């Protein structure tokens, strides 16, 4: 039934348009997914590109699982369907696995190394998956694990882990590194520009390895 079209030649309403680059940023409420999404959005504006995103609100302080969909060069709705994302940036390894079905064949996951153990596992006596078992689930996917915690410590603050992750994922994003870094500087609290610049740069370096 479905007419497959290679990327880059979708034609709607008579206008030629390229397909959007679709990514998810996932994690645990409070880890800074929305700031990371804002930075990507700002970088898109700086490059004069269209962007659409959809956010989870209200969980920031309540430790729930959160997902932000971002469509760079997106012209339509903000939602990304399962099996079609180009990239997943995850701040938590368990969440990387939880949302891994969103990835298309050949897509990439860039994930933090650690997991925040859900409180429900203690309450309900559920087994806490080990990092090894989670990585095993991802084994058939192209993924990169980043030690964002130690990188953020090196940059000067644990709070900069989201920026480390953004730097690490920058190699896969269809945006200039400069646009991302300028957006970081524009959006983080003024007192933390230096730390976050360093965090971004360390992230870029770690992502290369």
């Amino acid at each position: 039934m479905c007419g497959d079209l290679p990327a880059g030649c979708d034609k709607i309403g008579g206008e030629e348009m390229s397909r959007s680059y679709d990514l998810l940023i996932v994690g645990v409420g409070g880890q800074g997914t929305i700031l990371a999404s804002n930075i990507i959005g700002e970088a898109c504006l700086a490059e004069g590109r269209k962007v659409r995103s959809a956010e989870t609100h209200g969980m920031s302080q309540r430790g729930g699982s959160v997902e932000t969909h971002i469509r760079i060069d997106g012209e339509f709705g903000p939602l990304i369907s399962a099996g079609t994302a180009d990239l997943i940036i995850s701040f938590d390894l368990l969440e990387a696995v939880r949302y891994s079905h969103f990835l298309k064949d050949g897509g990439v996951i860039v994930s933090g190394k650690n997991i925040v153990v859900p409180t429900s596992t203690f309450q309900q006596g559920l087994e806490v998956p080990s990092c090894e078992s989670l990585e095993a689930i991802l084994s058939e996917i192209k993924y990169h694990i980043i030690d964002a915690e130690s990188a953020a410590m090196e940059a000067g603050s644990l709070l900069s882990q989201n920026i480390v992750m953004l730097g690490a994922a920058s190699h896969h994003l269809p945006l200039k590194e400069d646009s991302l870094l300028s957006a970081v500087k524009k959006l983080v609290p003024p007192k933390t520009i230096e730390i976050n610049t360093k965090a971004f740069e360390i992230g870029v370096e770690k992502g290369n390895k």
Partner: protein
Amino acid sequence: MAVRYMLGNEAIAHACVEANLDFASGYPGTPSSEVIDTLRRQDVRDFYIEWSVNEKVAFENALGAAWTGIRSLVTMKHVGLNVAADPLMTSAYTGVKGGFVILSADDPYAHSSQNEQDSRMYAHFARVPCLDPAGVQEAHDMMAAAFSLSEEFSIPVLFRPTTRICHSKSDVELGEVGKEHRKGNFEKDPRQYVVIPAHTRVLHKKLNEKQDAIAKRLVEIGYNKYEIRGKTGIVTSGIASEYVKEIVPDDVSIAKIGAYPIDEEWLAEFVSKHEKVLVVEECAPFVEEVVRQVACETRVHGKKDGCVPYEGELDPASTAAAFEKAGMLYDGNFPRDSSPVEGLPPRPPILCAGCGHRATFYAMKKVFGKKGIYPSDIGCYTLGLQLGAVDTTICMGASITVGSGIANSGEENPVVCTIGDSTFLHTGIQGLINAAYNNANMTVVILDNRITAMTGHQPNPNTGVTAMGDPSPSISLEALCRSCGISFVETIDPYDYVGTIEAFKRAKDTEGVKVIIARQPCVIEARRRGIKRRSFFVDTDACSGCGLCVKFGCPAIEFIDGKASVNALCSGCGVCAEICPQGAIRSEVKR
């Protein structure tokens, strides 16, 4: 003209300012809350804003303002419109003088709601126009038009964004901030504003006479438009039209509905030019029913023949599935085997570390046990479900009323209901008066954290500050409850575990309506105000590994290798230390 990357609700708020908004009121509710929150944050504010105590109150305030000739806005979530339905129905008759826009944000998939109701049905019911934007930019552009449309036809206009517009971000082209503000001037006109039967019969006729002109106007301004491209067509509305545009082949026609009432002649013209039409929309089959009504020869597909789901929200893949069910081709590739990994531990949102509600729930259950019946309400504390402390939740204010109904049903187990301070002030008070009047035997616990926390910490009459940031007298919940005729009114600090247990025991031993006010500021708000408490730690040698503290359910307590430990989330409430039978949890002392 500036282009910004902005949240839908921020873009809507900006559009209101561009449209010379003079007055805004609302009651917080996801996904609508950020509209007024954004208006509150404006550097220069040439307009009035208020957080009202509930949606009916907010609606009537904004309506009164619009009657004085100024432009007014009222915001709420979809279920809030149920509360405001009474004035909505008759304000359609009276009409307005200044532009009056009712923003009612729908929540397909019930991301943060008790149902998936469709505000468009209310617009149809009341016979007021409804604007149904497809994206953030269109929401921005339509909002400005909504005020003019309201003034052109002297009628309230319903504006209906959905979660994926309110909480989406996009590059948005903004206009200039408006500078032409009006001052209210109420001109008496009883035939317009006093709806006695003799007046209302006339007003009803006038309302009906406006309908055709409104429908035609919505086509003229381009909110309802179509493009003929083949023998098969799609009729789509709201954000669903974006998913359709993403996958629709070039030889399929599209009719995009952005506003109601739909001009039926116009729609019939589109439908009749096609052999087959698929209707794609979220929530109710609202457009579909009109399409089916005007279709003669054309085959119609949609929700009613199972092509489009009735429940939940759409996305490109589910829209493609609808095309396929209707026997239509689409562009794009959506793998079918993309299902989530199974067996992962869930990560639901939970009450914060140190949240006073958790401590209150724990003590309540300790005293009233498993047989206690716990009706609850809408707010953060609905998360008490995970602690076994929430037995019912239906709508705002219904904890006390459902509770008194159960208490007067012959049910013999004790009824203890919980309700937040903002919800109590919203629609809880009437239930309390009713319970006291009808001699219900129950305990009402007001979870008083001094703020409307769930929706983003909006102030309420309990907070002592208005939406404008002006100080206001803080209400006395104790005096209010006593004035209802209730003699058992006790205020406790939920961090004082022993004191809380004692209060619950006294309530259990007393007949009639008992009120316990559990007062402790929201832990997030307390942290913002700089209130710091010492963290706690577990003395591993003293910990017996009984796991009682883990059952308490605080995210700051972990249980590893048979022993409890406290992590960095600890806010120092100290309740876990009081419930630990070994006394193994202690306050960290600075050395």
